[in-house]
């Protein structure tokens, strides 16, 4: 029996074997986070710059970066906390100055409650950052036209949300994400709201190139085990997508054919 080997994920100039991106917020300790990241076998990890010390000094009270193992995965700094394009651009520049990669997960949420992304500011910031040489991965609502506009200005991925951050609601935006995937010229990463491995598998099955998971792993009673569960689901979902899923039948076959008159 042959085992299917899935295609690698290519974002910008980098190739990844894992299609599971993991976030670093909400963990009960830095050690738990580090272990869960290892267990997930992720190769791309996002971290909120606002939690890190960007001055270049070693700060034991803002040392999240010390627990991120850059030999295992690429660090993807994110701009969480930014409410507009200027703020996002500023903190991204600071990250590079502090020696972090010039990849940025662009997230601009003026609403601190549902953390929904501002499309206008995101597009504006993406343009500036791409001109400055950043590899930009924007977090967006599942808006196909916005996804197109961001690809036009040179974003390396688009990252539509499945549902609001932390909501565990899964692929509420499925029909819009389907359009984004159909039209995509860059990898589509479903970000936010995926609360169960089955949600992640469903995203990959429908053709998303990757998913980003944070809350569902971070607040699980055993984050490392949950990270592995997601890793398996992502792999299974991708395999199924590449093999090709049978279409679900929506109606029964008619018992008396309707076209017999053609043979008469």
């Amino acid at each position, binding site marked *: 029996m042959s085992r299917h080997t899935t295609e690698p994920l290519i974002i910008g100039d980098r190739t990844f074997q894992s299609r599971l991106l993991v976030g670093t917020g909400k963990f009960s300790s830095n050690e738990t986070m580090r272990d869960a990241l290892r267990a997930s076998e992720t190769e791309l990890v996002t971290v909120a710059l*606002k*939690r890190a010390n960007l001055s270049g000094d070693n700060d034991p009270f*803002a040392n999240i970066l010390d627990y991120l193992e850059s030999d295992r995965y690429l660090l993807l700094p994110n701009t969480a906390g930014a*409410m507009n394009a200027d*703020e996002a651009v500023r903190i991204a520049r600071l990250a590079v100055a502090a020696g972090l990669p010039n990849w940025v997960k662009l997230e601009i949420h003026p609403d601190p*409650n549902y953390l929904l992304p501002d499309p206008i500011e995101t597009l504006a910031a993406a343009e500036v950052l791409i001109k400055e040489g950043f590899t930009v991965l924007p977090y967006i609502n599942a808006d196909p036209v916005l996804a197109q506009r961001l690809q036009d200005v040179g974003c390396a991925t688009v990252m539509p949300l499945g549902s609001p951050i932390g909501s565990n609601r899964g692929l509420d935006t499925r029909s819009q994400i389907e359009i984004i995937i159909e039209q995509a010229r860059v990898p589509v990463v479903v970000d936010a709201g995926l609360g169960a491995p089955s949600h992640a598998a469903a995203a990959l099955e429908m053709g998303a190139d990757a998913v980003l998971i944070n809350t569902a792993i971070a*607040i699980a009673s055993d984050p490392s085990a949950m990270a592995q569960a997601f890793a398996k689901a992502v792999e299974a979902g991708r395999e199924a997508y590449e093999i090709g899923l049978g279409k679900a039948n929506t109606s029964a076959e008619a018992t008396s054919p309707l076209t017999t008159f053609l043979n008469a």
Partner: protein
Amino acid sequence: MREKLMGGFASRFSEVFKRLELSSTLEIANRASDVEVERVLAQGRANSLNEFAALVSPAAEKHLETLCRLSQRLTQQHFGKTIRMFAPLYLSNECVNICKYCGFSRHNDIPRITLDIEKVEREAALLAEQGFRSILLVAGEHPKYVSNGYVEEVVRRLAETFPSIALELGPLETPAYQPLTQAGCEALIVYQETYHEATYRSLHTAGPKKHFHWRMDTAERAYEAGFRRLGIGALFGLHEWREEALALAAHTQHLLKTCWKAQINISLPRMRPAAGEFEQVDFLQDHHFVQLITALRLFAPHAGITLSTREPSTLRDGLIPIGVTSMSAGSSTEPGGYSSFDETSFTPTREQEGEQFHIADERPPSEVARAIRKMGYEPVWKDFDQSLLAAV
């Protein structure tokens, strides 16, 4: 015309509050049926003020365990297994107000101190050494701090060390707040103390604080000046707690709608002994306190909830996994209080003459952080960066 149509949300809370018929809601808070409480608990959220009222009712008391479980889940979903750490730094205890319950009240014969900026920096350095990257600057209400740029200068100096700076001072007009946000302040805290107008008037007999409605709209004025975190609260013990809770919940809901770009943070300080002779009207019992915190969580899942060192350590530790999102630690409520004792061998402080109130959790910050970790939570010291605010 359009303004008129949108009037409901465009108004300040003081206007909304006048129209708010709290008496029928209070009726629910006092007399909700078991059936109603169980219905709200079954949906896992309080979707209206009336549903919130049911959760603070006597009938909900026997469901405290369920309330805690639901609250824990919502809190972890939105805030993770983390507790944000901050420390208050008292700049001054000079005050022009008479507040009958407060140690800083102008009729109290206490030593009055305003720290000079170098002294503030020394105090702040001690807090930074302990790990704090988020600081709350507190001062009594006195025109001389703000009008002469004192607070602004303090903020400018501290912004290099503290990524997050919050303020708790006497209410100001929007234009007076602007230099403070430009200097690097991120949050503004102002407690209504009591939302019961008659009680408010009887407790605040002199000074600018006697203006009940003007104080009520402070958070909105601050939002217009660019503050991105707004803290509100009531001082429990001044008036019947259920009525305070309803008003505070209504205020929270109003701010979530009108100040949609701000993080709303709720504080629920309970009366502590302080200078002056003040007798509490309605002490908020521990189990009611827990009921209130969890009910607020089910009503406003995204609102931050702060727990200060007013509360004793056992209660604070117990509340960590239930709904609280930020905590102070090792606090001194007296200007200059951090350098007046040896912080490396932190010993319980005696009641100080010039403090605002006496704290109950006297553990040093490192010990509080250990307790948080022991509960399976991560103490987060830095969760904001000045670069987000800095002018280019």
